[in-house]
C-alpha cells in the first residue's frame, strides 16, 4: 500500500511538472512592453514554486513508503516537535513569499501609478452586453460628451455609446467596433461599461482590466509587435459572455493614421 501510494503521488507530481516545464500549454507570446517584466516574474515564481512542489510531493511520497508499518519497522520516534525547526521554516517561508511579492511590485507600480507617456494615443473602450466599442477623440484630442439617455445599443456605433452629437468636441469622435492601435506608442485607455461589469482582456498584450458601470478607469500600456490580437471578456456578464469577443489590430503608425483618417472621412 505504501509503495502504491508513493508511486501514484510521484507519478502525478512528475507528469504535472512535465507539462509545465515542456510549456505544452503556456502563456501566449507577449506583444506589449510589460511582457518582459511580467513573464520574468512568472518564470521566477514558477521556478520557486516548482521546487517547493517537487520537494513537498516527492518527500510526502517517500515518507509514506519509508515509514509504513510492518512487523520489522523501527519503533516510533516519540516526539512532540522541535521549536528550532518551527522557527526556521517560519522565517524561511516568510522571507521567500514576501520577497517574491516585493520583486514583482515595481511592475505593478510603473503600470498603474505613473501617468501615461506624453503623446500617448487616447482610446475609450466601452463594454456592453455583448460587444466592445472603441472611441477615438479625433484631431481635437477631446472626447465629446456622452449621455446614458442617448444610448441605443441596437443602433450600434455612436448611438451605442450615447454620443451627444451636438457637442462640438463630439464632431470628430470616431466610434468603431474594432480596435486599431499604433505599434510602439503608449495607449491611454479609458474603460467604461454601460450595463454590467465586463473585463477587457487581451492575453498577448498581458492586459486585463474590468470595465465597471459608473466608473471611468484609466490605464496605459504599450503594444510592441504588429499583429492581430483577440479580446475576450473576462468578467461574467450574462448569457452571451462566451461570445463577447473583439479584435485589436496593432499596426504601424502610418497605417494607423491612414485608418483613422479614413474613419474620419466616412463620418463627414
Amino acid at each position: 500500500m505504501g509503495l502504491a501510494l508513493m508511486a501514484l503521488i510521484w507519478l502525478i507530481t512528475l507528469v504535472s511538472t512535465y507539462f509545465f516545464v515542456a510549456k505544452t500549454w503556456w502563456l501566449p507570446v507577449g506583444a506589449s512592453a510589460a511582457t518582459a517584466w511580467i513573464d520574468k516574474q512568472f518564470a521566477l515564481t514558477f521556478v520557486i514554486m516548482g521546487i517547493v512542489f517537487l520537494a513537498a510531493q516527492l518527500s510526502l511520497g517517500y515518507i509514506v513508503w519509508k515509514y509504513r508499518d510492518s512487523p520489522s519497522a523501527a519503533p516510533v520516534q516519540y516526539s512532540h516537535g522541535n521549536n528550532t525547526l518551527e522557527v526556521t521554516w517560519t522565517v524561511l517561508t516568510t522571507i521567500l513569499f514576501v520577497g517574491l511579492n516585493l520583486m514583482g511590485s515595481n511592475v505593478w507600480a510603473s503600470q498603474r501609478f505613473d501617468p501615461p507617456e506624453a503623446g500617448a494615443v487616447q482610446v475609450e473602450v466601452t463594454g456592453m452586453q455583448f460587444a466592445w466599442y472603441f472611441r477615438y477623440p479625433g484631431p481635437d484630442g477631446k472626447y465629446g460628451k456622452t449621455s446614458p439617455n442617448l444610448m441605443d445599443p441596437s443602433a450600434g456605433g455612436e448611438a451605442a455609446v450615447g454620443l451627444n452629437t451636438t457637442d462640438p468636441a463630439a464632431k470628430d469622435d470616431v466610434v468603431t467596433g474594432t480596435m486599431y492601435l499604433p505599434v510602439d506608442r503608449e495607449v491611454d485607455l479609458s474603460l467604461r461599461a454601460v450595463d454590467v461589469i465586463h473585463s477587457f482582456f487581451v492575453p498577448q498584450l498581458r492586459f486585463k482590466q474590468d470595465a465597471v458601470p459608473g466608473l471611468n478607469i484609466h490605464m496605459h500600456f504599450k503594444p510592441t509587435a504588429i499583429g492581430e490580437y483577440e479580446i475576450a471578456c473576462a468578467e461574467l456578464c450574462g448569457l452571451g459572455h462566451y461570445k463577447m469577443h473583439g479584435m485589436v489590430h496593432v499596426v504601424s503608425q502610418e497605417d494607423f493614421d491612414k485608418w483613422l483618417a479614413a474613419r474620419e472621412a466616412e463620418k463627414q
Partner: protein
Amino acid sequence: MATPATVHAHAPQGFIRKYIFSLDHKVIGIQYYFLALSAVFVGMLLSILMRIHMIWPTAVLPLFGEIKPETYLALMTMHGTIMVFFVLTTAPQGGFGNYVLPIQIGAPDMAFPVLNMLSFWTTFVAYMFMLAAFFVVGGAPLHGWTGYPPLSAIQSAGPGEGLGADLWITSIAIFCIASLMGALNFITTTLDLRAKGMTMMRLPLTVWSWFITAILGLLAFGVLLTAGILLLMDRNLGTSFYVPTTMVNGAMTWHKGGSPLLWQHLFWFFGHPEVYIAILPGMGVASQVLSTFSRKPIFGYRAMVYAMLSIGFFGFMVWGHHMFMSGMSPYSAFAFSILTMCIGVPSAIKTFNWLGTMYKGRIRFQTPMLYAIGFVSLFVSGGLSGPFLAQPVLDIQLHDTAFVPAHFHLIMGVAAIFGIFAATYYWFPKMFGRMMNETLGRIHFFITLAGTYAIFMPMHYAGLAGQTRRYSQFTEVAYLQKLIPLNTFITYAAIITIAAQFIFVINLFWSMFKGPKASDNPWEATTLEWTTATPPPHDNFGGVTPVVNHGPYEYGVPGAPKDYVMQTDPASVTAH
C-alpha cells in the same frame, strides 16, 4: 463546568422527537451530513452537465435536452453556490463538528440544543429555497456564485435574474442566519463545556479547527447577510446600493449613484474567510488522522494551533486579492498582496508539521489515513498556485482564467472534500456502530486522487494559455478553440471520477446496515470519543463525566503499557 439545561439521560422515544426534531447533537450532526450528501450529488450532477456542454455544446441529453448558454451559466451558479454553502460549509462543521466536538471535549451535548436543532432546520429551509430556484419561471440565476451586481441586481440583465435570483439571495440570507446560530453554539460549547482537565492546550486539533471556524463564521456570515439584504432591496425596493446609472437591455434602469465595488468588498470580506471555513476543519481532521495512523504525536501541536489562529486572523485582511482587476485603488493591492503572501506562511508550517508527524512513524494505511495523505498532497498542490494569484502583476494574466478554478477547486474544493472523506471513514464506526469496507475504500481513494489531479492540473495549463472562466463554449474565440482537446480530456476525467463516487455511496449505505460490528476504539485512538460506547449513548458518556489527564495525541509513549495513552487514562501511566 456548566451543563446544557435540556439534556436528559434518556433519549426521547417518539420517532419525530428522536429522529426529525431531535435535540441530540449526534442526530443533528448526521442530519447535516445527509443534507450535505444530497447537496454534493446535486452539485456533481450540475458540474457534469456543464463539462458535457463545454465540449459538445449542441448535444441533446436525455432528460435535460439541449443545454443553452444561459442554462450553462445557471448550472454553474448553482454548482458553486450549493457546493460552497451546502457541502463545504455544512458537512465539515455542521456535520462532523456537531457530532464529534461535544464528545471530544467530554460534554453531554452542545451548549444550546434547541438552537442547534433550529440552525439545522433553518439550513434545511435555505436549501429548499436554493433548489426552488431551478423550478421558477426563468430558472436559476446566471450571475455566478459571486453574484456581482449590476448583473445580479437587475431583473432584465439575463434569464434567471427574476424570481430565481430572489430565491437564490433569500436562500443565502437564511443560510447566514443558520450559520450564525451554529457559530454561537460551537464557540460557547468549546469555551464552557469542556470536561475536567480538558485545557485548551489539550484540545484535539479537530476541536481547535471547529472552534476557529465558528469564530470566522460569526464574523463573516453577518457581513454576507447584510450584503444580501441590501441586494434584495436594490432588486425589489428601489434602492441603489450597488447600481449606478445603467442601461440594461436597451432600457434605462431607475438606479443611480450605487457602487458595484461595494458588493465586491462586502462579498469577499465574507468570501475569503469562507475559504478557511471550508478548509480548516479538513486541516483538523488531517492532523487527527495523520497522528493516529502514524502512531506518533502530532509534530508541533502548539505551532499547529498558532498556525490555524493566524490563518483565521489573516483571513479577514486579504479579501482585496479577489479584486486586483476590479478598478479598486491599485495602491491597496500592495497591502492585500503582502498580507496574502503572509497567509502562505502558517499554511507552510502546517504542511511541514504533517510531514514531521509521519516522519519516523509506523504508518497504517487504512482508508481514513489514505484520505488524510491525499489531503496533504492536494493542500500542497492547491496552495502553491496561491502565490501566483496573490501577486497583482501575475493576476493581470491569470485573473478570471481557468487557473483560478484550478487553484480553488484543488484547495478549498477537493482538499476539503478529502477532509470530509477522511472524517467519514474515520468516524463512521463511531456514528453507525459498523466498519466500512476497506477494499472499496481503497479503490475509491485511488481513483478519486488520480481523477482529481487529472481534472484540475490541466485547468492550470488552460488558464496559463488564457482560457477565460465561465465560458459556456469555446467556439467563438479563435485561441480558445485550440484548447478544446485539453478540455475534452478534463471532461472525460470528470466523468470517470464522478462515477467512482458511487463506490463510496454503496460502501456507505451497505456498511451502515451490513458492515462488521465496530469495537469502541477500532483505530486505537486516544481522544474522548473512543472512550465511550459505539455508538455513544444519548448523553455521550452514560452518566459518567470523563476526566482528562493527557494531551490528545499520545502515541508511541516510551514506557507506557500500550502504544497509545488515552486522554482519560490515569496520569500515572506516563510522566507527561
